[in-house]
């Protein structure tokens, strides 16, 4: 009987291991504090990276886990940015409630869009997300009275966090704030992917045809994750508005939607950390390459993208993981 019990414990232990914090993860999050001490002049960039990483995580939840390919997710990022920005312009600059407002507006838009999104697949799905993105962009462009149009939304004033921490010129507060938001968003996402819901999403990604045959209303799962993802993307947009005090139209633009997918492919989809690593690589590369030649830096991104897709089809983290597995197998 004892031997049977211990045999039964093995799968339990395996499941528990899938969601356990590894030392590498803890080291990674400690490393996010390094810019405070070693790169104090780069805190503004670090803040941009944290915001973009949060955005990339929101896309990974639908693209990497649920298999919903999107080229229009900047729509929710931009809606969040305008929501938080407008709230401040019209007199309420408290940052945390502003972020919640941004998340709610983007989540609501995500909920409306989800009814269409879960009914289409493949190329049609990409085109629908692209179309929704264009619609939102041109609406914001046309509604100059509200959004400021091509001039951008100005006059945002963000109050100190907890009425105490002012946003300083160097970006100490901005990076702390963005990093905290990224970490919370990451914790939420990590919880989701390690839950039965996360398993159901992977089921949809792996074989959508089988899902009804095991009794799953999988479209409701997809709607749910789409709303969550839109709300997180909106939070990231709200962060950008609050930390830079301006919202430009490109917050909603196609370029941002495409860039975030490139980051995910670079870092590796379906593993959350791939989103963060992809954002770091993309934005650091842009910062460095634009310093050398501000016009042609996408050339190098294109080269890097092709290299990764050909050599490491599961992204940089996926490639490292399989290298590590091979090394362990040999050792």
């Amino acid at each position, binding site marked *: 009987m004892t031997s049977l019990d211990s*045999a*039964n414990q*093995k*799968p*339990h232990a*395996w*499941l*528990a291991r*899938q*969601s356990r914090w590894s030392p590498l993860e803890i080291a990674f999050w400690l490393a996010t504090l390094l810019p405070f001490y070693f790169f104090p002049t780069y805190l503004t960039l670090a803040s941009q990276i944290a915001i973009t990483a949060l955005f990339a995580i929101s896309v990974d939840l639908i693209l990497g886990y649920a298999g919903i390919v999107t080229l229009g997710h900047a729509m929710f990022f931009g809606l969040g940015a305008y929501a938080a920005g407008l709230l401040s312009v019209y007199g309420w600059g408290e940052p945390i409630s502003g972020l919640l407002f941004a998340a709610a507006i983007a989540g609501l838009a995500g909920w409306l869009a989800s009814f269409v999104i879960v009914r289409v697949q493949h190329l049609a799905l990409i085109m629908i997300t692209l179309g929704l993105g264009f619609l939102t962009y041109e609406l914001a462009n046309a509604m100059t009275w509200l959004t400021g149009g091509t001039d951008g939304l100005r006059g945002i004033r963000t109050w100190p966090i907890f009425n105490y921490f002012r946003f300083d010129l160097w970006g100490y507060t901005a990076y702390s704030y963005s990093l905290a938001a990224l970490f919370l968003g990451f914790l939420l996402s990590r*919880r*989701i992917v*390690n*839950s*039965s*819901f*996360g*398993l*159901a999403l*992977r*089921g949809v990604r*792996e*074989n959508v*045809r*089988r*899902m*009804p*045959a*095991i*009794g*799953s*209303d*999988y479209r*409701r*799962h997809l709607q*749910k994750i789409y709303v*969550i993802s839109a709300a997180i993307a909106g939070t990231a947009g709200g962060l950008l508005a609050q930390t830079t005090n301006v919202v430009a139209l490109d917050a909603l633009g196609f370029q941002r939607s495409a860039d975030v997918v490139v980051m995910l492919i670079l870092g590796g989809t379906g593993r959350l950390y791939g989103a963060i690593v992809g954002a770091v690589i993309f934005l650091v590369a842009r910062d460095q390459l634009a310093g050398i030649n501000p016009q042609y830096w996408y050339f190098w991104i294109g080269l890097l993208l092709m290299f990764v897709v050909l050599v490491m089809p599961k992204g940089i983290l996926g490639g490292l993981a399989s290298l590590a597995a091979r090394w362990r197998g040999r050792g």
Partner: protein
Amino acid sequence: MSEAVLRTQALRKNFGSLEVARDISLALPRGCRHALIGPNGAGKTTLINLITGQIKPDAGTITLEGEDITAAPAAARVRKGLTRTFQINTLFPDLTPLEAVTLAICERERVAAQFWRGLASQGAIVDESIAILERLGLGNAATRATRTLPYGQQRLLEIALALATRPKVLLLDEPAAGVPKDESAMLFDVIASLPDDISVLFIEHDMDIVFRFATQIIVMVSGGVLLEADPQTVRDDPRVREVYLGSSGHG
């Protein structure tokens, strides 16, 4: 005869001018082990698709335990206890069998949408998942990715996924398709040992297996039921010999 769990009444389906289901009326009693046989293109898989809701019938009704389910979506039918397996593996390649079966149980228990609760904390569900895998001899493969499993084990996982939905009626579409003969006998031993309250209808081409495991045989030809009878009657029926076994009759 015990009461029918699943009943189809004059089920009809045309694909253009092709009649794939001609007024099919069947009744599966509780705990039955029925075989569905017939030459290729007879409409056996189409019938399963009709019953489980993958395709909609042009006419006729389907009732499960007296309830009309003709218009119910496929997933709803599964939750009522009407489950199928697929002739071609329809699995989750990157999930482990443990995860796949656990997912099916989570859907059955309506907890699959709980995103705030860690999977590892669903102890009872994981226990049940392990028990199902052990029953099908997949205990040792539980934590390996499905795509790395040998084909025979993937066929067993097809059945494990179906069992996880706790079916009242189980429709098996060629469960042993592509499996070597010695292994397929093992697979049907598993099917034969399923609980008595599950009604099973299986499609199978191997006549030895059909005559060994089926208590009743339904013979389909070009979209219609030619004959439904016990194995001995089917074996002796001249029409069956002609259209299915061939005139030489090697049954």
